[in-house]
């Protein structure tokens, strides 16, 4: 131990066998980042398993695998886990790891608060899962938990699945708010000298925008959940139509957060794509400034579009038309982003390593998901497909084919930095193809189903829908299998992979100027920033010979 440590200090590196640290209450943003990422990946596997049971039930029109209350519990938990325990906290983890490195800081602004925000999550997640053990099971009202359905719980049981669902979501929300305060403060005040706003990598811009949304919009969900809890367990009538309440108010409060939540999930993913594409295309990110502004623009507009989830609720015509207009506005800054990515790739020198494959795949799939998103904003069309599989297909193109693929791009891209070792390229490519093709099979099939009128959340369906359902289910089983080479690769490479150099991709960005993995305080000296981001023309990043840290 001491030997290790002195050697590590001499090399200015962390000791190699510091895995115990990952189970400790560390205040190092890098340790916390890894803690977040590993924990949320376990939840991703669980959520995926639930999805595969759902898809197995939908192989045949009849209900024959799980009974209906269990089916309802499964999609409720699948959606809840994937959003609140996979993508959102994974992003928090990756941002935790990267933001201080990218802006040249030694740590987050409030390291202790950072550790607390992480350590709220494991108990909250376990609490949510524990509801599988209750006699009457988990919540069954979907991740929206619209009242009055969510208020229909067994009489005389204070502790029921819905109650636990609300409590764990409030806990997760508290953790997110703490995290948001920390991120916004860090990005505002902790940048190193010379790191002006317009020298920040787009990833930092997107974390900044996403965390601002958390600060502004999350209180609305927390409030709604607390009122729902009062209605559920303490006899109030906020949302009960038979009393003086109004269930539609819940929908407004819920979507006021949960629409921006889409961007809280998506913006960091766009940020990853904006880091990876230039590095592997050897071009500066095209239109950096407009991309940065578009990031903030997307966040700003997304606050004013929530009613597009309620076009078929009791929503009057003027409201439908207003929110149709605002929703379509989002297409302008997102369009700017998609064009900028494409122009970055145009006439480039492409290196198609695994991170690039995932980033390009994610970018292309985002264009598909974005196109169907604009369709959904068009009220007359949305009225037909709302609550059908068209919507399920659309948002999985975003949450899986774009965001989760971008997350994989990010994992492979920064793996050498985080672990100090290289992953195995062949396995990475296998993982990509096993993900990309089945993901499209699975989620494309949902669009024709929705157009034909198959509703979401149904545990059995009319026989006419079986064809595409079988295809979607088979695709999803392959998709489940695709995680196996990934896990093998990550675990194997972390333990036995070849040692990584400091900047294996010849990338720009401060995180590549420090050692892999970075020392406890990130940098030997706080860097002074003198150049624009994505400076890929610079020979420093272009030539293997000049690259100062090549072996």
């Amino acid at each position, binding site marked *: 131990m001491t030997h290790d440590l002195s050697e590590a200090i001499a090399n200015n590196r962390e000791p190699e066998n510091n895995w115990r640290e990952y189970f400790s209450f560390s205040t190092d943003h890098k340790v916390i980042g890894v803690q977040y990422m590993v924990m949320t990946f376990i939840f991703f596997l669980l959520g995926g398993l639930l999805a595969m049971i759902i898809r197995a039930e939908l192989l045949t029109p009849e209900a024959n695998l799980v009974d209906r209350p269990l089916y309802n519990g499964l999609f409720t938990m699948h959606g809840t886990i994937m959003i609140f325990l996979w993508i959102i906290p994974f992003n928090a983890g990756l941002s935790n790891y990267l933001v201080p490195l990218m802006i040249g800081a030694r740590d987050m602004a409030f390291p202790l608060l950072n550790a607390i925000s992480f350590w709220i999550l494991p108990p909250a997640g376990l609490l949510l899962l524990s509801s599988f053990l209750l006699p009457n099971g988990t919540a*069954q009202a979907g991740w929206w938990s619209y009242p*009055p359905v969510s208020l229909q719980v067994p009489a005389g049981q204070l502790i029921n699945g819905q109650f636990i669902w609300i409590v764990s979501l409030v806990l997760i929300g508290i953790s997110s708010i703490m995290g948001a305060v920390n991120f916004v403060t860090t990005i505002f005040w902790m940048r190193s000298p010379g790191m002006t706003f317009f020298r920040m990598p787009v990833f930092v811009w997107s974390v900044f925008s996403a965390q601002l949304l958390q600060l502004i919009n999350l209180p609305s969900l927390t409030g709604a959940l607390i009122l729902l809890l009062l209605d559920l367990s303490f006899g109030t009538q906020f949302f009960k139509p038979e009393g003086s309440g109004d269930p539609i108010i819940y929908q407004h409060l819920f979507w006021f957060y949960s629409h921006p939540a889409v961007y809280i999930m998506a913006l960091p993913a766009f940020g990853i794509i904006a880091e990876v594409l230039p590095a592997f295309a050897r071009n500066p990110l095209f239109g950096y400034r407009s991309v940065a502004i578009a990031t903030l623009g997307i966040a700003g507009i997304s606050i004013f579009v929530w009613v597009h989830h309620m076009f078929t609720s009791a929503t009057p015509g003027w409201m439908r038309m207003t929110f149709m207009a605002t929703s379509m506005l989002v297409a302008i800054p997102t369009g*700017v982003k998609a064009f*900028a990515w494409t122009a970055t790739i145009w006439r480039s020198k492409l290196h198609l390593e695994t991170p690039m494959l995932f980033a390009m795949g994610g970018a292309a799939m985002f264009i598909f998901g974005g196109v169907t998103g604009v369709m959904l904003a068009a009220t007359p069309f949305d009225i037909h497909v709302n609550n059908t599989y068209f919507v399920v297909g659309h948002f999985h193109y975003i949450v899986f084919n774009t965001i989760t693929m971008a997350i994989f791009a990010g994992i492979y891209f920064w793996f050498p930095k985080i672990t100090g070792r290289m992953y195995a390229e062949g396995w990475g490519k296998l993982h990509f193809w096993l993900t990309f093709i089945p993901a499209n099979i699975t989620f494309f099939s949902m669009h024709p189903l929705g157009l034909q009128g198959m509703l979401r959340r149904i545990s059995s369906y009319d026989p006419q829908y079986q064809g595409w359902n079988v295809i979607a289910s088979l695709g999803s089983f392959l998709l489940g299998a695709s995680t196996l080479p990934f896990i093998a690769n990550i675990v194997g490479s972390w333990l036995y992979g070849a040692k990584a150099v400091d900047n294996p991709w010849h990338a720009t960005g401060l995180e590549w100027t420090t050692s892999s993995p970075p020392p406890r305080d990130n940098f030997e000296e706080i860097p002074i920033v003198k150049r624009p981001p994505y400076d890929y023309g610079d020979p420093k990043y272009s030539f293997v010979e000049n690259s100062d840290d090549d072996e």
Partner: protein
Amino acid sequence: MFSFWEYVLIAFYVAGLLIVSRWIGQQAFSWMPPQATAEAQRVDDLFSFLVSIGAFILLGLVGVMVYAIAFHRAPPEDYTEGHPSRGNGKLEILWTATPTLLVIWIAFQSFNIYQQLNILGLNQIVHLHAPLESAPAYAANVSDIPKPASETIDVFVRQWDWSFRYSNNLTTKELHLPLNRSTRLKMQAEKVIHGFYIPEFRLKQDIVPGRNIDIVITPIRSGKYRLKDSQFSGTYFALMEADVYVESLDKYNQWLAQTVSSETTNTKNQAVAENIQPPKTLFKSGWYTVAPAQPAVANQRKIDNDT
């Protein structure tokens, strides 16, 4: 930035894209269920238009990516820069303007088509529980008031069962609608939110307990359809379907007269049946469920009118 021949190639690319995306847009009509209302025709026109634009953008951008993958791979170990361009103000303005114009165009089309739909009456927003006729002055927006209809049918929806009451007080479990005539559906839900959805009608409307929600529909294609519940409503949500018959006015009136005078029969409610005799599933959780509302009697003459 481009040479003459490159401009020619780009022009060909865009022309090809226009043709292909228009063709895909035409195909879009066949992806939809049959059009059983005039509204359905409008909605499908809009969908076809959206598909054309979407295909143009998707194929255009993905095409560029595929082109780069095919022709712009770097030799291994070559980390020099790709193209020297550091940004191009004109291009940036062009692609901010492009989505802006497209979005304005799409929004304009959608707004126009929405104005042509005559299905939704949402004055329930302004008067809860009040009879429809008493408060028209509140309705701020003209387009929110459904046009007067020639028939009126009450729709009652419960966990998990639909029933319909006609002008002659007949109550049934199936919905009959006269062809080519406007029918007002006055919808009421008990306990939880349900949704009224017939895919061939391109029509969907949540029914919120405590609110009177009216819609007016005019079917233009006779046949049998399925009415579905579109808003998740608990355990037996998937079973909540009902048959819909669209038939000529003569046949409709004949059916009304015949059914009223026929014997009352008990129709089976699927949710009730399943609650008593659950299907054999591999995993049985036995978790909590609300008990389904008792089966209503079909073909029943309603004695009292207040519901």
